[in-house]
């Protein structure tokens, strides 16, 4: 009886944290710049490929946990540098024109990411085994909990807690919220808003890279990886209240857990209940879970 609840709950939470981690950079950029970054999935994919290449894993070899964590950080830094370049050359000039151009530019960037991956890494499928330490599974009753999934859930929750704390209790976080809620006044008060925007773009790219590395053991690398979590992430972003970190976190959990239970009944259509739950939420609460307060 317990396992009939605990099992799907665990799987749902794992899926939720994957979605939340993927969506965190998206949420931050949207919450502050009000730009929906369509390229986020492409950046995530490049992060994963970058980590793959840096891992040097070939054939049957394996990597240790420490190395894996380091790879995630390196993928993040690599993407952060790319973010700096893109902000300089694309986002900043476009900020002066209409918002729609930024949207189109991010879509173009997605296509460029996909093209770049095909050109650099080819179209063959690749994969990296889970680091041995994380490859085990814990068994409680008849619930099987892969250590890797526990690890991802822990990282997701810890990252969410850290982000919340940063936003509500630090100077930087409060400044971010202020700029998100009224950039006009922030500028008039002497805040260097363009520079803050640049850092947020860099942070968004960085997160895409780190999460790309983090989810690498769980993914098969192919140029389609860009689309792997995009729909779920946009769903969590929208249901969460468009750019609210807490909303995205809660929405990711709600939608993924419902989906996890739902797929017990309709295993032949995976993901169906994610969309059903999303549609219901949008009817019941069209403003999103956390509308009103930005970020």
């Amino acid at each position, binding site marked *: 009886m317990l396992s009939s609840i605990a099992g799907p709950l665990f799987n749902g939470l794992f899926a939720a944290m994957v979605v939340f981690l993927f969506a965190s950079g998206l949420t931050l950029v949207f919450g502050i710049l009000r730009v929906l970054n369509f390229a986020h999935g492409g950046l995530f994919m490049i992060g994963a490929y970058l980590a793959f290449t840096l891992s040097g894993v070939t054939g049957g070899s394996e990597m240790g946990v420490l190395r894996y964590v380091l790879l995630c950080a390196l993928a993040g830094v690599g993407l952060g540098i790319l973010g700096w370049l893109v902000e300089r050359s694309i986002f900043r000039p476009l900020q002066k024109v209409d918002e729609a151009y930024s949207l189109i530019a991010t879509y173009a960037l997605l296509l460029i990411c996909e093209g770049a991956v095909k050109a650099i890494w080819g179209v063959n499928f690749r994969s990296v085994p889970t680091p041995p330490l994380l490859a085990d599974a814990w068994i409680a009753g008849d619930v099987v909990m892969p250590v890797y999934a526990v690890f991802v859930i822990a990282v997701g929750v810890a990252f969410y807690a850290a982000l919340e704390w940063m936003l509500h209790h630090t100077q930087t976080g409060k400044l971010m919220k202020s700029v998100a809620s009224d950039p006009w006044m922030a500028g*008039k008060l*002497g805040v260097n808003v363009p520079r803050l925007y640049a850092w947020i773009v860099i942070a968004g790219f960085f997160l895409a890279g780190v999460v790309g590395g983090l989810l690498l053991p769980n993914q098969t690398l192919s140029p389609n990886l860009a689309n792997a979590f995009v729909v779920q992430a946009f769903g969590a972003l929208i249901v969460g209240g468009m750019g609210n970190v807490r909303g995205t976190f809660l929405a990711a959990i709600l939608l993924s857990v419902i989906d996890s239970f739902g797929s017990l009944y309709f295993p032949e259509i995976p993901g169906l209940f994610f969309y059903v739950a999303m549609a219901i939420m949008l009817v019941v609460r069209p403003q999103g879970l956390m509308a009103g307060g930005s970020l």
Partner: protein
Amino acid sequence: MLEVGPLDAFYGDSYVVQGVRLTVGEGEGVAILGRNGAGKSTTMKAIMAGGPRAVGPVLHRGTSIADLADHERARRGLALVPEDRRIYPHLTVAENIAMGRHAARPGATPYTVEEIFAFFPVLRDLAQRLGFELSGGQQQLLAVARAVVARPDCLLLDEPTEGLAPVLVEALARQIEHIRSADGMALLLTEQNVWFARKSTTRLYLLDSGRVVFEGSWDAFDARPDLQSRYLAL
């Protein structure tokens, strides 16, 4: 110190501010008067690149500031209190004031929040109150306090007395005078409250339908009682 115009400002196709010229001297108080819709706020915003499309020179200490980024304009010493105040609802009174410290000019030390409380004692009792918990009048006061914390050399106040009780209007006039004299701060003020404007400035521009229809000292204004009834009566 501030030389503006001839300045035109547009909202879409509507030509709101039409060839306005005005100057503000070092430490001087200057008022812009006019009835609702005369173009006072639009003039302020056009000077600060804060909304309308503005065409025409705006010089601060001889340098054009029209193309500067907002924070650069602020850090040159121009502080705007917009008509809608824009207090941050999620920040406390103290934090709202501290936001203004970003506008500190290079090399200059802004006031501390505590020093600001000495100028505006009412705010000290509200220090830990969140922005959204303040009354309209408290928000007005806070908006002024937040604007002066970085010691600007020119304060632009858009109808600071709107909706304030008479006793608060008097208190605000005293407090603004106090902090201006401490720092030699110039003031460009839009008002419909003639008493407050007279108390805070030495000369005025009268605006009607986006044009300057009178400029001069308060004495010159008083010598022409027709102005008041023609351009300010409701």
